[in-house]
C-alpha cells in the first residue's frame, strides 16, 4: 500500500527528473520513494498514437495497444526513479522483465488517470531488482495495469538473492525475420520519450558494454505484440523477459505458437538459436 499519492498537474516532460535519473547515485543501497506518482485525465493524442503504431507495426484503431499504455505511463517511471528519494537510476538500470494486463479495450478518445510507484526492491545476484507498478484508470475503472522490473547493477538490497536461472531455451525456427535499422531507436525515442542514450549513441552504448547502440526493449516487445495483432482478445495479460538486447542495426527472428488460450512467442537471433525476448500472452476473463 503506497504511503501517499503525489498528483502531478500534467505528464512530466523529460526535464529535471529525467536528468537526475541519468546521473549515477553514490549510495549503493537500493532505495525507492514510497509515493505513487499520478497524472489525472490525461488526453491521448491520436497523432502520436498513429506515429507509435507505425513505428511498432500496429494498425491505427480506436482501441489502443497495451504497450501504448505503458508508453503513456513511462514518464512516471522516470519521475519515480528520478525522485530525490531514489538511489536507483534509469541510466544503468536494465529493464529485465515486463508484465501488463489489458483489462478491457481502451479507446484513444478516453481520458486516463495513470499512477506509478516503485516497489518490491529485492536482491539479485548482480545487484538489486525493483518493480515499477503502474495502473491506468478510466473514470473509476481500472483498465490496465503493468509491472516493469528493472535491474540496478551493483546496487544492494537486503536479503539473499535467489538463484537466477532462466528457463532453458530450445532453439526455434523463426517464421519471421525483421530487419531493424539503426533509425528504429530514434523513431522509438520520438514516440516513447525514452531518453536513454544507450539506444541512440554509440559512445553511451560502449560505456555500458555494448559494441553498438541497442534498440529499446519495449520496441521489441511492441513489435512482437503487433505481430499477434489478429489473435489478441479484448482482455489479456502479456509478460516478457528481456533476455539479451538487440544491437542496431540488426536482423532478428520471430516465432510464436498458440495452445489452450496461451500464446508464447520468442524474438530470437535470426537463426533462432538464442533468445532476445520471450513473451507469453494469456486471455483474461
Amino acid at each position: 500500500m503506497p504511503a501517499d499519492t503525489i498528483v502531478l498537474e500534467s505528464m512530466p516532460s523529460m526535464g529535471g527528473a529525467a536528468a537526475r535519473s541519468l546521473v549515477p547515485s553514490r549510495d549503493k543501497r537500493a532505495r525507492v520513494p514510497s509515493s505513487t506518482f499520478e497524472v489525472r485525465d490525461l488526453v491521448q493524442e491520436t497523432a502520436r498514437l498513429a506515429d507509435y503504431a507505425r513505428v511498432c507495426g500496429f494498425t491505427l484503431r480506436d482501441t489502443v495497444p497495451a504497450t501504448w499504455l505503458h508508453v503513456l505511463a513511462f514518464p512516471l517511471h522516470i519521475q519515480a526513479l528520478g525522485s530525490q528519494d531514489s538511489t536507483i537510476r534509469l541510466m544503468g538500470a536494465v529493464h529485465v522483465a515486463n508484465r501488463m494486463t489489458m483489462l478491457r479495450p481502451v479507446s484513444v478518445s478516453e481520458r486516463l488517470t495513470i499512477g506509478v510507484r516503485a516497489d518490491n526492491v529485492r536482491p539479485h545476484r548482480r545487484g538489486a531488482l525493483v518493480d515499477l507498478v503502474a495502473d491506468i484508470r478510466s473514470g473509476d475503472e481500472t483498465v490496465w495495469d503493468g509491472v516493469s522490473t528493472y535491474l540496478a547493477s551493483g546496487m544492494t538490497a537486503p536479503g539473499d538473492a535467489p538463484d537466477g536461472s532462466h528457463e532453458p531455451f530450445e532453439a526455434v525456427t523463426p517464421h519471421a525475420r525483421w530487419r531493424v535499422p539503426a533509425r528504429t531507436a530514434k523513431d522509438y525515442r520520438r514516440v516513447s520519450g525514452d531518453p536513454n542514450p544507450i539506444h541512440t549513441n554509440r559512445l553511451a552504448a560502449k560505456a555500458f558494454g555494448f559494441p553498438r547502440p541497442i534498440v529499446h526493449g519495449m520496441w521489441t516487445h511492441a513489435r512482437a505484440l503487433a505481430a499477434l495483432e489478429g489473435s489478441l482478445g479484448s482482455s489479456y495479460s502479456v509478460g516478457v523477459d528481456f533476455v539479451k538486447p538487440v544491437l542496431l542495426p540488426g536482423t532478428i527472428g520471430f516465432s510464436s505458437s498458440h495452445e489452450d488460450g496461451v500464446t508464447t512467442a520468442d524474438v530470437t537471433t535470426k537463426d533462432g538459436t538464442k533468445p532476445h525476448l520471450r513473451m507469453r500472452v494469456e486471455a483474461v476473463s
Partner: protein
Amino acid sequence: MSILEKTFTSAPGRAISRKAGLKDPPRLRRGRTWPSGAIIHGTIGDGSLVADTLHLLGRAVEEPVVDAGTDAPGYGQKIGALVVDATELTSISQLERLRALLRPAVRGIERSGRIIIVAREDHDGWEAAAAARALDGINRTVAKELRGGATSTLVWVAGDTTASDLLTTLGFALQGRSAFVDGQAWKVASTATKIDDLVTAPLAGRTVIVTGAARGIGAQIARVVARDGAEVIAVDIPPAGEQLAAVANEVGGIAIQLDITQADAGAVLAQHVAQRGRGLHGIVHNAGITRDKMLVNTDTARWESVLEVNLAAQMRINEVLLDPDTDGGLDDGGRIVGVASTSGLAGNKGQTNYAASKAGVAGLVIAMSSDLASREITVNAVAPGFIETEMTGKIPFVQREIFRRSNSLDQGGRPVDVAETISYLLDPGSQAVTGQVIRVCGQNLVGA
C-alpha cells in the same frame, strides 16, 4: 481535483481514512468458480430440496457444526459455504436452529464464502408467515456482518419447487458469478423444468440481443453471454459503431447500428433475427442514458429523453418481438432481461427522470412476467448499484467514494458482475425465475 480529494489521498489523509475503517476492500471470487472450502448443508426440519439440488450440482456436502447455545464451537478449517434448507420452517422456535447453524458458519467462513438460505414463501398460518419474514431480516443482517467478500442470499421457493427448478439459482449463488449480489432475496417458482446438470455453455446455439453493447456494462454482457455460448446481436447507436464493431468481432457476433428509440427499431431487430434463420432466445435491454438535474431544474427535454430511451423504447421493441406474427420475434420459452438501477429502487438526488425510468423497468418486469407465463417467457431485471465504469468517474469525488463504500462489500462492483447475473437469468435452466428484480449492488445501504 478538490481539496478534499487531495487530503484523502495524501499520507496523513490515508492514515486517517484507514483509522476510520476504510480498509482496502476484499478481493472477490468471480467466474464459474466454487467455494474452495467445504460446502456445509444444514436443515431446519426434514426438507430435502437443497440436498437434492446440491446433489444435481455434483457438490459433496459436509455436516454442520451446531452451536449448543453458549460454547460457540468452530469448524477446524475455513468452510466455503453454508446452505440451509429452511423449507420446513413454520415456527419462531425453529429459528434458534438457524442461529445455531449460522453462528459457527459465519465465524468460520472463507473469503468470498456463501451463506444461502432456501425457504418457503407461501405459508400456512400467522406464525409461519412471521417466521418466514424473520428470515429476510436475518439474511440482510448476516450479509452486513460477513467480512472478506462473503455474501448471504435468501432464496424463496414454492411448495412444489423441484431441484431442477432450483439448480441454476443455487449454482449461481454458490459460484463466483454472484460476487456482487449480497443480502438479496428472490424467488424460484415451480415449472416443468427437467434439467439435471449445471452446464458451462447454457446458451449454446441461442441468439441473444444486447442493446447498448458498444461499451461498459453492455460490452461486458455481450462477452459473458457469448462465453456462455450465445450468438450475440450487439446493438448500439450509430455513432458508437466503431466500438460496437470491435465488440461484435471479438465475440463472433453481429453488430447492428440502431437507435432503439426509432419507431421501427423492433422491426429492424426482428428482421435481422429472421434473416439469421434462428429463433430469438433473449433480449437484454441494457441501453440507457442519464440526464441528471435536480427536479427544480428538470425540463421536458431532460425528462422525456430519459424515459424514452430507458423505458418507452424497450416497451415498443418488446411489443414487436412478442407479437406471435412477427417473423424473428421472441421464441416461446424465451427471456427478457431489463436493467433497472438501485437509483430507481431507492431514489437518488438529481435523478428523478432516471429513477422514474428505472423503477418503471422494475414495474414492467413484474407486470409482464405473469402475462407471459403461459408462453414460458421469463421477464426479469437486474438493478446494478455502484459499478466501476468510465461513467462513474464523472461523479464528484466525495459522493463517489461514499457510494462506492456504502455497501457490505466495501467496494464498487464490476461490469462483469452485472453481466453474470444477466446470463444466469438468460439460462434456459432458469425457467422458474420470473418477475424478479435482482440487485447487483453488494448490498448497497440505500434502498430496500
